[in-house]
């Protein structure tokens, strides 16, 4: 069911990345203006999200985390409803109860989002168990950061997934930062993939800023999980080019490291490659970016027009 990587029009991937970037930039601007709450943006990590999500089939279930805009938009979430959620409005996917940090969209198979770093790892095996025991075809994709990989739940989750043959594709977005701590200050090894292998789980690292490379690696990894019904860990090696949470002056960031990654911006990389290959010209690229900006402007207007939930709905949906 999943199209092979070469069947996906790379311009589609570029469009998705542009949409994500425009979305995040709207939030950054809105939060600077005091109109939108701050969020954890995925700027710089668009390729890692888009490459993976495009490797999935509609049956697959996704667990994401606090830095989820890329995953959600690549999966087809409506940016208006996302922004409404970020702004705590009634039309948000979670009725404004989540805000930006824990957005789930069940109808898109994005389930059980928790902002407790590491919780995605603890929830994923159960979701995979349901898929397996209820005879559903989809695999489970669990996005996690390099920080989440430092929580004990990483160990418990990978051990159980290996032991119980659970069809989980763990995708570790190693963006070099765990909030205000560099991964070097937090991890005894460079790569999360190294840890994964010690459970007998196949694991690999891919350039997370190259959307085609991510798509190819994720397609292969997902196919392996689908066929083996066993876990796999794909590490996307990327960088968080904005701060942890808007606003963030990034005073603690080594500018040389950041600059090197900014020079490898995933969107520029993809666009330049398409232009070089002749699949896109400069005007076309500009048009795509403009379309994304328009789309987000409309979404923002939708979100701003959405009312806040009524205060007497304070205790809705606590108990089933």
């Amino acid at each position, binding site marked *: 069911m999943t199209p092979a990587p070469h069947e996906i029009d790379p311009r589609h991937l570029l469009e998705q990345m542009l949409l994500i970037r425009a979305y995040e930039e709207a939030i950054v601007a809105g939060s600077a203006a005091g109109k939108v709450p701050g969020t954890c943006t995925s700027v710089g990590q668009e390729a890692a999200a888009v490459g993976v999500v495009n490797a999935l089939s509609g049956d697959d279930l996704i667990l994401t985390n606090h830095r989820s805009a890329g995953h959600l938009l690549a999966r087809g979430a409506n940016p208006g409803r996302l922004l409404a959620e970020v702004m705590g409005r009634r039309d948000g996917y979670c009725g*404004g109860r989540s805000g930006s940090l824990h957005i789930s969209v069940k109808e898109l198979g994005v389930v059980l989002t928790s902002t407790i770093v590491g919780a995605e790892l603890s929830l994923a095996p*159960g979701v995979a168990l349901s898929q397996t025991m209820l005879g559903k075809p989809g695999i489970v994709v669990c996005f996690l950061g390099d920080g989440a990989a430092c929580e004990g739940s990483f160990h418990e989750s990978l051990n159980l997934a290996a032991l119980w043959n659970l069809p989980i594709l763990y995708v570790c977005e190693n963006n070099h930062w765990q909030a205000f701590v560099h991964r070097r200050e937090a991890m005894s090894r460079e790569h999360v993939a190294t840890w994964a292998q010690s459970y007998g789980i196949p694991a690999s690292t891919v350039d997370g800023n190259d959307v085609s490379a991510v798509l190819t690696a994720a397609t292969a990894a997902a196919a392996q999980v689908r066929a083996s019904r066993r876990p796999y860990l794909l590490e996307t090696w990327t960088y968080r080019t904005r701060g942890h949470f808007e606003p963030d002056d990034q005073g603690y960031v080594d500018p040389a490291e950041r600059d090197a990654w900014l020079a490898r911006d995933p969107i520029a990389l993809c666009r330049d490659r398409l232009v070089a290959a002749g699949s896109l010209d400069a005007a076309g690229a500009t048009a795509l970016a403009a379309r994304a900006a328009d789309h987000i402007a409309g979404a923002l207007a939708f979100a701003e027009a959405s009312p806040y939930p009524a205060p007497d709905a304070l205790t809705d949906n606590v108990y089933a």
Partner: protein
Amino acid sequence: MPAMTLYDAIGAALVEEMRHDPRVLVFGEGVATKRHDLVQEFGALRVRNTPLAEGIIAGTAVGAAGTGLRPVIDLLFAPFLCYAMDELVNSAGKLRFMSGGQFSFPLVTLAMTGAGWGVGAQHNHNVEAWFVHSPGLKVVMPSNPADAKGLLKAAIRDDNPVLFFLDIGLLYQPGEVPAGEHIVPLGQAAVLREGNDVTLVSYGKTVHGCLAAAETLAAQGIAAEVIDLRSLKPLDEAAILASVTRTGRLVVVHEANRLCGIGAEIAALVAEKAFARLKAPIVRLGGPDAPVAASYPLEQAFVPQAAAIATAAATLCQRQAT
């Protein structure tokens, strides 16, 4: 009615509910070893041993419950819940609300608690109040095998996460248990003895202390009403208030630390909603603000006993008389 222990009543409820609903499954550290009959009837996929890792046991249960299964997990002793707090409190208790109602979490967590085996404070620590304080969770703690069976069946059928505490001291005490479809709805207290002079409210093993105290009190001409809460959340406020409205006197008894315990909640409830009917101060008898010692006599001394309950209740009744 067959007599069985509370442990076996739990087993009976599991068997019946696993027959009743194929989505029910059971897992935990050693549960497939200890309840091997379940493995034989339902197979190794629905009854599983797990690694020694409470966090992932609970997390897996939450993930499974949120996507279509109805897991029952055995986390052994209540203090081990400390390793599963994120999964139980932040995930099971909150993800329904935070997702705007997209998911529900039909999930039962079993844990043993309380004095009886001299195993010390890291196996014996009554933490049920933590979960009453945490939103989105239900909490039950039966005092006898029949309720254990009936409450567990209700808990498994409930669409919310339920913390199910088993009192160690009661685990192997036999009691009569109705066969078949015996369900005790969550949120209903049981009035085990009626009386008009003083209300004794309790749950778990101290219910038996209250019943014994009521006997003693009866001999002194004091009619004590004994209420077994059974569910700690939802709490049967109506049953408590109805009784205290009649008796005007309240003694709340439990083994857990009195500070911010269930007894505090009930005392506060009554002081808010039945104040005008109160004839005497409320009395709480609870564990001290201390871990429980392994040493047997200290472990026993930790638990409010019938004599102390009777004395407290009698004192309340005299106070009014004078």
